[in-house]
């Protein structure tokens, strides 16, 4: 690609982004995005492996080009003085940062309805949600406005919207990608993750942002991920199908699509085996202790003292905190801060937080047991249903939380996992999930390449 072509790509992206404005997926105004894209296209280094590729970025990842709001009133207009390591790496590879995408406030949600700046519409059905919390990124990729976008995962916030929107979402192994500059939600679970219109688009962006970073002590000292070649067959792969992910009440369309994908895996030469991950049912309760606990601490810094928005006319310190945080955070964020504060309180710590950590260890052991018996990858549905209607679950937090029941285990155990489209049900996409072994994203991506080519994902399952 030449500089002229890069400029043309930047302009075309800006135009495409302005055309999907109705989705409310992008928080950056169209004019600001156009200006920034053109400036970046001129400055980008042509030798980069992503030269000229526009990448939209979830608005909980710090950028110098645009404010970082986490879709929260408390950070409305906040301009970070530094940028996330993943952004530096993307820019160094020649990618163009194509604006900031809408999300559930502080990445807390599964529908992108909990944004202080309005909900994101599903690109195929505006009455439905795109999933969340990286709903803005997923919707933009699904709408064809950008080939790839960054999201973040704590409990499935990339794979779940990828499944709902019919795009590819990859959550790397915990420690594969730097978290520096990703606004923390649940630090032991958070990973910057990638959405792409194809396995290849998502994988090559992941490859660029992966690797060691001196600014994040939890980021492993490893070279960037090397992309596998696209395989003809999957001979030699052993793929486990955990029965706990196929409950009797699983959406029949989702089941059909998964069955078709499993047949495709067999036809590709993979050995498919039934396995069991017995503690799966405890993943959501465990997740909803650990994630809020860490969130209650991580979000303590938003106090209106040093940055962000502060309530006017306060006279006491207690009032400063109460009114700033009361007005700045939305109801779901407040709920999780309260839950998290409670489970860490003296007298309740052992009953909740410590128990949850013990369950987390059992979940990890489940996966080790399966992998130790020669299974290379696990295949499951990404979500129990297709995209649900807007407003359907906002009054019922537990129903909303259960949208992540198949994705949260990979976050709790740190394992790499991805979702790819495996068909449609009544026009709505279904996602199939691959869960891999620690730092073996290449195996997972290799299988996904083959599956992607073997399945007519745009057709009814």
């Amino acid at each position, binding site marked *: 690609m030449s500089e002229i072509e890069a400029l043309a790509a930047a302009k075309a992206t800006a135009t495409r982004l302005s055309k999907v404005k109705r989705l409310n997926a992008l928080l950056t105004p169209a004019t600001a995005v156009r200006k920034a894209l053109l400036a970046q296209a001129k400055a980008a280094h042509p030798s980069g492996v992503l030269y000229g590729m526009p990448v939209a970025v979830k608005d909980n990842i710090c950028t110098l080009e645009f404010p970082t709001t986490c879709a929260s009133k408390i950070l409305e207009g906040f301009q970070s003085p530094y940028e996330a390591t993943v952004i530096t790496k993307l820019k160094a590879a020649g990618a163009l940062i194509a604006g900031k995408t809408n999300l559930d406030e502080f990445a807390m949600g599964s529908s992108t309805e909990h944004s202080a700046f309005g909900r994101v519409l599903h690109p195929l059905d505006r009455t439905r949600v795109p999933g969340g919390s990286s709903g803005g990124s997923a919707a933009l990729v699904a709408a064809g406005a950008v080939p790839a976008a960054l999201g973040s995962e704590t409990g499935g916030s990339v794979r779940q919207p990828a499944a709902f929107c019919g795009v590819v979402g990859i959550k790397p192994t915990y420690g594969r990608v730097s978290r520096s500059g990703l606004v923390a939600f649940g630090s032991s679970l958070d990973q910057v993750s990638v959405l792409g219109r194809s396995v290849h688009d998502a994988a090559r962006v992941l490859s660029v942002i992966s690797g060691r970073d001196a600014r994040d002590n939890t980021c492993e000292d490893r070279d960037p991920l090397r992309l596998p070649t696209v395989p003809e067959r999957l001979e030699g792969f052993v793929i486990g199908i955990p029965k706990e992910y196929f409950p009797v009440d699983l959406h029949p369309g989702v089941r059909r699509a998964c069955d078709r994908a499993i047949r495709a895996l067999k036809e590709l030469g993979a050995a498919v085996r039934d396995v069991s991950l017995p503690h799966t049912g405890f993943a959501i309760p465990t997740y909803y202790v650990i994630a809020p606990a860490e969130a209650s601490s991580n979000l303590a*810094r938003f106090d209106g003292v040093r940055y962000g928005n502060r309530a006017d006319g306060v006279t006491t310190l207690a009032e400063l905190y109460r009114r700033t945080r009361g007005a700045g955070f939305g109801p779901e964020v407040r709920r999780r801060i309260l839950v998290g504060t409670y489970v860490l309180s003296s007298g309740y710590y052992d009953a909740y937080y410590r128990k949850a950590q013990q369950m987390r260890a059992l979940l990890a052991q489940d996966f080790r047991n399966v992998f130790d018996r020669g299974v290379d990858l696990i295949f499951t549905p990404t979500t129990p249903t297709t995209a649900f209607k807007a407003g359907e679950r906002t009054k019922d937090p537990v129903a909303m939380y259960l949208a992540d029941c198949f994705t949260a285990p990979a976050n709790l155990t740190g394992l790499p996992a991805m979702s790819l489209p495996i068909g449609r049900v009544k026009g709505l996409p279904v996602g199939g999930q691959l869960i891999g072994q620690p730092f073996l994203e290449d195996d997972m991506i290799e299988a996904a390449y083959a599956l992607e080519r073997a399945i007519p994902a745009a057709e009814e399952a």
Partner: protein
Amino acid sequence: MSAAWETVIGLETHVQLATVSKMFCGCSTRFGDPPNTNVCPVCLGLPGALPVPNERAIALAVRAAVALTCTVQHRSVFARKNYFYPDLPKGYQISQYDRPLATGGALTFVAPERGVVRAGIVRVHVEEDAGKSLHDRFPRATAVDLNRAGVPLIEIVTEPDFRSPQEARAYLLTLKQVLQYVGVSDCDMEKGSLRVDANVSIRRPGSTALGVKCEVKNINAFSYVEKALTAERDRQIALVEGGGAVTQATMLYDSKTNTVRHQRSKEESKDYRYFPEPDLPPLVLTPEWIAEQQGTLPELPATKRERFVSQYALSPQDAGVLTAERAVADYYESVVHAGAEPKAAANWVMGEVLADANAHQETLRVPAASLAGLIALVKGGTLSNQGAKKVFAEVAARGGDPRTVAEALGVVQVADTGLLAQWVEAVVGAHPAEAARFKGGEAKLMAFFVGQVMKASKGKADPKAAPALLEERLNR
């Protein structure tokens, strides 16, 4: 104060580690810079910023722990201590909680009443400092300076092993000395690099159970340690003797009024919601690395003091003075190694050297080799003690070789018998009455004549050589 009560005190000491940069970021730890100039996204707690531990700080903390004979844990865990305050940028302090860096040590010190006392060290853990709230800078507003936020600290917690405020102070002085020796901290209480909180309770002598304790905070100078603890002890005794009971509370010491006042009771105490810091993996230290830190430890003050007594035949008191500061002890040994006689060197260092250092910002201005040379000139009779002191002052102020300086100052003693004989002749001639009395048996007049010779020679005569010549002349 009533002897019917025994005081029991335990101390929690926060010590700033002598690093150039902060605990979890690269910002400077320099004291006294303009407010909020040594800050970055990490220590400001900006969204998305992550801590990265300072290896130098860990090394210093391990050295402190080893110097206090603690067991350094091969695996310790950082924890978040959660509370809201404007000078705490992240809303939590990164500290250690149930898995501290080191446990189970001791520090031996000399207590004023009980002699040698062994204070048990419960734990040593690493943490970051908070910023500073300035309540008196702007009218009706609090300003926050975050230069100190993220500065590395260790907290050293003792057993309740002190029986009086004086003992607590003696322990602190010994702790300070050890930590300074090891190079862990400058322990400057006025700059806040050593801060102490105390748990105080009282009980009947002979009782082994602990009374209800109160924590005393805000003791911000060494001179307040005894006063604050005495005030709290007296408050508790007065309370109990008046028919009341001590209730667990945090007390603040006010140095202006020399009183303690109630800050909060146990019921009002904060729930810090400690949990393991997810941004930092457990701190794993290999036995080899710990041994390496141990290997860098210098000889500690108590050992050095004993060695000075046996090796240089010094009194325990003199050895104590000479080893009080590592720089002075090292200087003393350099003087001895340069050939000075140990006792003479000790007298010089404790006298002229320390006095000069005192007057000149604790700098040791005369090189050890020069002092050894000076001591040799005295021993060889070239200089009198008085002359040597003049030379010392000159060398301290302007440098130079002691002999050259002595000659320039004209204080070299004259042992030349010809010149000495002239002074003797003149002195004896000028004092015929005394000469007659001496001859008559008043031997003690020799001192008078030597004095006169020194006076006549303006101090240049060798006082050791003069008596022989005087004797011969007077008895002629």
